[in-house]
């Protein structure tokens, strides 16, 4: 077996049975790896009637054919299940070292079923697995859990993916954390893990990975490495990582500020990536085999947050606990991210819930008494940090916010749902969709809910009309404030993102830097697996995954009417201080038309057509949807 290990570990927590299955060839050929493997299993094994927090839900952990090789950034691992946060597709991935270690331990996928009688952790080592008691770990924070497992197993090279107390307390947006802060944070995969009484998965492996054509594989890798080193973004990614976006989006007038009431934050400089690099950054940090180590270690040596040190943050956490909540204190923002990491919560959803409460407070829809006496005025960092603690432990008003912004709005009432910034129950990120129309469309249609990582269509920032025509047929496609052509742009980047997640490589390189076009991916996959992939087969595999996911959420009841955005983005223009983005709203409906048409999906309903599904070889999906009366 080349590229893949060819093995799947199926663990039943009820019976404690461990079964090793062969990885079906059909999965390798048609779904490539990680996200693709997991989505196929999710569709086949988790039908609509399953309760996301019940014993019938399953947790799928998948890696890809490049994972553990020297391909730059092939370090990621996907965790998937039915989401307790959204009730639809749950999927999230993390970098670091866990994914490669799982592969070295002999597995391409792990499937976790049932619920353990008492807390356990799963220990996988070189093709064998066993459950170990975890009662003593239950309640521990993420960092402490990882440290305790390493000590218990007496092996510093063990890699751990674990949950924190937030997941144990049923916070619906809890993640699974690898290498301390590498979070598969979105859609509540940690909450699923907690519902199974599974505190952690520890992996250790020493098994070989073999490439079918090692010389060709290395030759291609050298080419790709050079492309990365020579890429115009290389130094920026290296020195600033995603934190570059605080200033960049603020200047463009679309940085999520005070819960999307404006796109311009006057305190942006104080919380910018540049300021972080000049003050608290100590050194860079990368994932396994990465040639663009974009993360960083930081430490705060003096002041109120003296002694705080950690890795990161990424832009989403940094802006989430600064501009989104009106805080211009970098130390406080870093503390907010640190709390989420330690308690095991998604920074995007957590910052939405907190900033949602702050806007309600501003509008008089939430009183100080209702908020446990907290003064939720914009910029009150103490209140933000206290509220994060309350959410993680479901204390007082924190309990209201712990189920996500949709449920919080239901409990608070008073018309507050108007201010809940989510799509399909998943809270949206730190840029204002009104200033990025392709991203806006991407949010509206993303298969896991309001999510930017299902497409990442940053091509729209290039402002090069000739490139717009060459690649997507119309000049407007290259301009972020235009809506024409964005259906085609989003479809293209959805497939690029699917490819990245199936190969379990980093989207910074594969999607944002546009490394590894489909034809080169085919060459590389052929060299590593020995399977004769073509450009068309690889593109089709990515398209198949997107269609399969759409079919999954359609089966859960999602239709065109659900592919929408919060009303603010559709009706309220960005205010004048937003400079180049001022006056902009999202023209969603024409973009949706173009998007469905480009996908060959039904324009009225958003359901994939039978012809499209059959063309992608998804006859079994057609049969299932027919049986259910959907197509």
């Amino acid at each position, binding site marked *: 077996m080349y590229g893949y290990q060819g093995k799947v570990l199926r663990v039943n927590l009820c019976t404690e049975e461990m079964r090793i299955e062969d990885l079906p060839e059909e999965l390798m050929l048609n779904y490539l790896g990680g996200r693709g493997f997991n989505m196929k299993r999710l569709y086949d094994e988790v039908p609509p009637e399953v309760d996301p927090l019940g014993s019938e839900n399953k947790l799928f952990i998948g890696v890809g054919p490049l994972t553990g090789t020297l391909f730059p950034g092939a370090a990621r691992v996907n965790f998937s299940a039915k989401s307790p946060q959204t009730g639809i597709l749950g999927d999230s991935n993390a970098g670091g070292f866990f994914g490669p270690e799982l592969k070295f331990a002999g597995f391409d996928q792990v499937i976790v079923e049932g619920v353990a009688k008492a807390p356990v952790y799963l220990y996988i080592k070189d093709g064998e697995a066993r459950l170990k008691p975890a009662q003593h770990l239950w309640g521990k924070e993420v960092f402490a859990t990882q440290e305790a497992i390493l000590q218990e197993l007496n092996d510093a090279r063990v890699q751990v993916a674990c949950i924190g107390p937030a997941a144990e307390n049923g916070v619906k947006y809890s993640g699974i954390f690898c290498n301390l802060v590498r979070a598969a944070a979105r859609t509540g995969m940690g909450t699923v893990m907690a519902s199974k009484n599974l505190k952690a998965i520890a992996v250790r492996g020493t098994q070989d990975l073999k490439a079918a054509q090692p010389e060709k594989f290395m030759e291609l890798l050298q080419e790709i490495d050079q492309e990365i080193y020579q890429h*115009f*973004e290389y*130094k*920026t990614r290296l*020195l*600033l*990582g*995603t934190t*570059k*976006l605080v*200033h*960049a*989006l603020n*200047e*463009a007038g679309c940085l999520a500020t005070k819960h999307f009431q404006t796109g311009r934050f006057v305190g942006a400089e104080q919380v*910018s990536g*540049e300021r972080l*690099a*000049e003050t608290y950054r100590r050194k860079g940090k990368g994932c396994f085999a990465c040639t663009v180590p974009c993360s960083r270690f930081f430490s705060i040596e003096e002041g109120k947050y003296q002694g705080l040190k950690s890795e990161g943050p*990424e*832009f*989403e956490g940094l802006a989430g606990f600064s501009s989104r909540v009106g805080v211009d204190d970098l130390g406080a923002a870093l503390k907010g991210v640190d709390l989420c990491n330690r308690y095991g919560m998604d920074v995007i959803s957590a910052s939405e819930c907190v900033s949602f409460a702050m806007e309600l407070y501003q509008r008089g829809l939430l009183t100080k008494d209702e908020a446990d006496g907290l003064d939720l005025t914009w910029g009150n960092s103490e209140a933000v940090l206290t509220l994060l603690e309350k959410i993680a432990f479901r204390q007082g008003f924190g309990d209201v916010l712990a189920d996500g912004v949709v449920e919080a709005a239901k409990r608070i009432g008073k018309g507050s749902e108007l201010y809940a910034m989510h799509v399909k129950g998943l809270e949206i990120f730190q840029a204002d969709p009104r200033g990025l129309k392709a991203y806006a469309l991407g949010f509206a249609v993303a298969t896991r809910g309001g999510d*930017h*990582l299902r497409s*990442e269509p*940053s091509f729209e*920032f290039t*402002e090069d009309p000739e490139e717009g025509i060459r690649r997507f047929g119309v000049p407007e496609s290259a301009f*972020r404030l235009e809506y024409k052509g964005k259906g085609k742009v989003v479809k293209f980047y959805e497939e690029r993102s699917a490819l990245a997640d199936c190969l379990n490589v980093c*989207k*910074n390189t594969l*999607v*944002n*830097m546009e490394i590894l076009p489909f034809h080169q991916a085919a060459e590389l996959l052929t060299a590593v697996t020995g399977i004769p992939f073509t450009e068309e087969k690889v593109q089709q595999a990515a398209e198949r995954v997107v269609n399969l996911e759409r079919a999954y959420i359609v089966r859960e009841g999602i239709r065109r009417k659900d592919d929408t955005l919060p009303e603010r983005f559709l009706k309220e223009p960005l205010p*004048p201080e937003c*400079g*180049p983005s*001022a006056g902009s709203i999202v023209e969603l409906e024409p973009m949706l038309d173009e998007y469905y048409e480009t996908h060959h999906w039904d324009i009225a309903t958003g359901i994939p057509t039978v012809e499209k599904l059959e063309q992608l070889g998804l006859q079994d999906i057609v049969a299932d949807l027919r049986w259910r009366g959907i197509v």
Partner: protein
Amino acid sequence: MIVVIQVEYLGVVRLLTAKKEESFQFTCSPTLGQILECLGNKYGQEIAEECLNQMIFLHIPGFPASQLKWPRDQDVKLENGSLLRFISMVTGG
């Protein structure tokens, strides 16, 4: 007449130059291309090349909103008091 152009550095250019801002003086209105040439002469090739990878927001006195420019817009004329802000490209995060 002295024409003063203010330049602010954000993104990687700020980290490489260790400067947040500075001003350049000319005897007549310069083009964006001339500013880029000045930066190359002052800071060397590495930083000059990085400048070519940035977005540039141009604030012209009297105009309420800034304009997005690119290093390829070499011929854009700058007026006295113009502010150029070099900033990282927006790509995904």
